[in-house]
């Protein structure tokens, strides 16, 4: 990215600025001495203990944090254009709560919209790493505090009283003698540059009223009435034609020739065809006709990038790539385990989609985008246009789970629109979204833990993964932040992401976790919790096996080795509330696991009915989470519920088979994501009381739930969970390629 802060002239200023921000204090405070040594062999801090990926994103966003502004209109409404993407995580509600609390204005007078791509924000418009609330918590409250101070100052000047005698309550500015003024009538005076305003700092947590209060989603009514507009519901580009693309029979195959163009052009409703890098686009009057026409196309394709690959060949490469252990496997007591995880589609309900209008030397794009600046720059370059000629509008998305970090549909729609000379509404079919859309990379895990005299002496985890694509701006951020990163040497972006997101929460002596990537050119991308669902999920299985090797109870074993009291508190909470150890009938069992990331921690206790071992059902789940400061506990519970459901699907049944260079699965009838019949009828979520600044929460729920479900399955079936999803037959006839 050309606008990144260079390592040259701006560094001094840049670092000075960072030193002045509270974020660096947060990072610095983390380098405290490790907890007082207990009986367990302490594990030195891992890179992610010093500075996690979220901290890196906060640091990267800090220089432009003051460019996030709160506006007060003459109508008395308060607005903020949030440079993040809402995909269901509830950030627009949580951010509105922050503003309302700080400004003492009713929540329903606050409007939070999604900002268009703003290249001047540089690294401050990326939604990922569970980072939205962590990164905007201070800037948004500060901006609101400034707005409040200006309103107070304007009222004080109007009434000729000291600002100290003016307060704000219920969205009204109140002065001595009961005088009142509305935000709207003060807005012009409050914006005056000549207004004298004292310092404005956000309220202390003790004065927050809305933050921490369970609050329902602000967009819920639009959603239950069908009024919530996703990209393809918008009528923004008049004449934009429904468009679908015929895609290759193998990943990244290219069009050689279209063999029946005239016949397809003559089909009902078909308006135009356009060949682009990714396939053959059909523009039609309706999506139904575009779909029929794209299916009727006869295309000769060139080879793809992984034509010879299938599950076996990929697994072989992964097994060969995993690094050897340092600790010897002989002569010491040890637990060894190897795990395989299949590819997993993000499969958001709204498939990849975008609207593009590329005509007359300019472009306008609408899509659900978590990295709109990178999208804008990439699309501009691809179209041969200056960035300033490409407007990118961020639309609320129908799910993401990492998928919308990429802008595949936006780029493709722009290319089609340019080629056809018409505005287009591009929709990927579900089959294409699952087969040619991005997925979590398959991985292989090798873990060895040595133990003696009731202690764990070493814990080694060697991860080999198909390459994960991070070309959505994260690489540029890591490059710019390289001086601050807690990792050295010649690590790849992926290894840096791995080491700043994955850490062991236990005092297991010498602990090493490493990642090796197998470079296969497939469509991959971070999937909710990046590496942690697989990496930490596998570790939690080994923790149970270590406990068994030492003849200890899995809950008490974790309790003994967890590094701090916060961690033990969430574990204790689920053990108590979930009645750990209660008798279970044959074929049923409990499982427990723990996970910490991004300054938050969680424990999960599930009960499973595996009387039919091939179709087990999680019957009950108890979850506790400590996220430092929950802004909206109700939204947090939703995120944890979603993480649990993701874990049920990916642990038990949902994955992608690769055959002859393409995923076989093409719909939810084949990719078995959790449905209601596989979802527990009893779920209890406990949000721990606030005790600090907000940690990350959006991805937190997945890894602990993966571990708990696998451990419950192991206890119920007496089998070792090693290959995920656990039940994974090709139980369908694949769609034609």
């Amino acid at each position, binding site marked *: 990215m050309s606008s990144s802060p260079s390592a040259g002239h701006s560094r001094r200023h840049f670092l000075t600025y960072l030193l002045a921000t509270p974020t660096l204090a947060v990072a610095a405070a983390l380098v405290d001495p490790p907890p007082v040594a207990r009986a367990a062999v302490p594990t030195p801090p891992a890179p992610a203990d010093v500075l996690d990926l979220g901290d890196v994103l906060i640091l990267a966003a800090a220089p432009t944090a003051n460019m996030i502004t709160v506006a007060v209109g003459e109508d008395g409404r308060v607005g903020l254009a949030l440079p993040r993407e809402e995909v269901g995580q509830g950030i627009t509600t949580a951010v509105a709560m922050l503003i309302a609390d700080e400004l003492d204005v009713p929540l329903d007078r606050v409007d939070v919209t999604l900002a268009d791509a703003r290249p001047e924000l540089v690294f401050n418009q990326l939604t990922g790493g569970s980072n939205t609330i962590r990164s905007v918590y201070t800037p948004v409250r500060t901006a609101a505090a400034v707005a409040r101070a200006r309103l107070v100052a304007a009222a004080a000047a109007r009434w000729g009283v000291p600002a100290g005698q003016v307060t704000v309550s219920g969205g009204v500015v109140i002065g001595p003698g009961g005088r009142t003024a509305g935000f709207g009538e003060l807005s012009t005076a409050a914006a005056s540059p000549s207004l004298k305003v004292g310092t404005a700092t956000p309220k202390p947590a003790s004065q927050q009223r809305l933050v921490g209060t369970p609050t329902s989603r602000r967009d819920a009514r639009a959603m239950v009435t069908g009024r919530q507009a996703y990209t393809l519901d918008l009528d923004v580009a008049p004449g934009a034609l429904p468009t679908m693309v015929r895609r290759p029979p193998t990943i990244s195959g290219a069009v050689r020739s279209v063999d029946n163009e005239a016949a397809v052009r003559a089909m009902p409703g078909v308006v135009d065809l356009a060949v682009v890098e990714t396939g053959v686009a059909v523009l039609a009057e309706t999506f139904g006709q575009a779909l029929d026409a794209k299916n009727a196309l006869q295309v000769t394709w060139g080879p793809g990038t992984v034509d010879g690959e299938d599950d076996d060949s990929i697994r072989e490469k992964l097994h060969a790539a995993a690094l050897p252990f340092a600790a010897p496997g002989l002569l010491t007591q040890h637990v060894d385990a190897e795990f395989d995880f299949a590819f997993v589609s993000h499969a958001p*309900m709204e498939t990849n989609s975008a609207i593009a209008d590329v005509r007359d030397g300019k472009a306008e794009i609408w899509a659900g985008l978590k990295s709109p600046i990178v999208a804008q720059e990439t699309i501009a370059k691809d179209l041969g246009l200056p960035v300033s000629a490409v407007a990118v509008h961020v639309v609320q998305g129908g799910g993401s789970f990492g998928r919308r970090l990429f802008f595949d549909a936006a780029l493709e729609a722009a290319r089609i629109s340019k080629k056809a000379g018409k505005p287009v509404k591009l929709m990927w079919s579900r089959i294409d979204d699952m087969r040619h859309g991005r997925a979590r990379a398959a991985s292989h895990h090798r873990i060895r833990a040595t133990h003696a005299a009731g202690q764990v002496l070493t814990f080694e985890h060697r991860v080999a993964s198909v390459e994960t694509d991070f070309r959505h701006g994260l690489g540029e951020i890591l490059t710019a932040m390289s001086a601050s990163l807690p990792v050295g040497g010649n690590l790849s972006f992926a290894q840096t992401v791995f080491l700043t997101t994955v850490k062991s929460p236990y005092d297991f002596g010498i602990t090493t976790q490493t990642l090796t990537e197998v470079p296969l050119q497939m469509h991959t991308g971070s999937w909710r919790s990046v590496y942690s669902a697989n990496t930490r999920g596998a570790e939690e299985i080994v923790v149970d096996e270590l406990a068994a090797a030492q003849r200890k109870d899995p809950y008490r074993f974790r309790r003994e080795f967890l590094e701090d009291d916060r961690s033990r508190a969430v574990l204790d909470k689920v053990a108590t509330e979930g009645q750990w150890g209660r008798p279970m009938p044959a074929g049923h069992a409990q499982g427990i696991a723990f996970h910490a990331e991004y300054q938050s921690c969680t424990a999960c206790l599930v009960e499973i009915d595996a009387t039919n071992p091939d179709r087990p059902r999680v019957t009950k789940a108890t979850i506790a989470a400590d996220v430092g400061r929950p802004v909206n506990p109700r939204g947090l519970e939703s995120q944890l519920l979603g993480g649990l459901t993701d874990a049920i699907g990916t642990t038990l049944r949902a994955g992608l088979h690769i055959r002859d260079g393409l995923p076989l699965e093409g719909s939810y009838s084949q990719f078995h994501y959790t449905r209601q019949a596989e979802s527990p009828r009893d779920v209890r979520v406990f949000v721990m009381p606030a005790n600090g600044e907000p940690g990350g929460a959006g991805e937190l729920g997945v890894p602990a739930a993966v571990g708990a479900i696998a451990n419950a399955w192991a206890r119920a079936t007496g089998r070792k969970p090693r290959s995920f999803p656990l039940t994974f037959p090709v139980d369908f006839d694949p769609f034609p390629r």
Partner: protein
Amino acid sequence: MPTYSFTLNGQSVTVDAPADLPLLWTLRDKLGVKGPKYGCGIDVCKACTSHLDGQAVNPCVVPTSEADGREVTTIEGLADGDRLHPVQEAWLEQDVAQCGYCQPGQIMAAVALLKRTKHPTDADIDAIENVCRCGSYFRIREAIKAAAAAM
């Protein structure tokens, strides 16, 4: 192109459409009714769930010709003006929606279930196959039970 007339959310509409065009696209692309969502096109994800003569159907696999002369209700036709249907109210009460994309279909499926039985069992609720990729199933279950109690 043939012409079809039906009642859509209480209003008569007439539309020119190929007989076999899935009703979903007639609703979305020709009539501008965007509540029913595309998620699979093959009656698997159920995101487009709507009602035909009061029964739950998936317009992604219903030919437009089948709607002729009948009554089509989408999520937009569920509320009575500003007064929400009790199922919609329950959805708000339980704060079910995350991304919201599947929720029109989930709600229409729940309304159809409550039409069939006033006191749905857990097994009845399990039989709803609509995919919620955000994983809000437990809240959906609670909302259906709350709506059943309220009705």
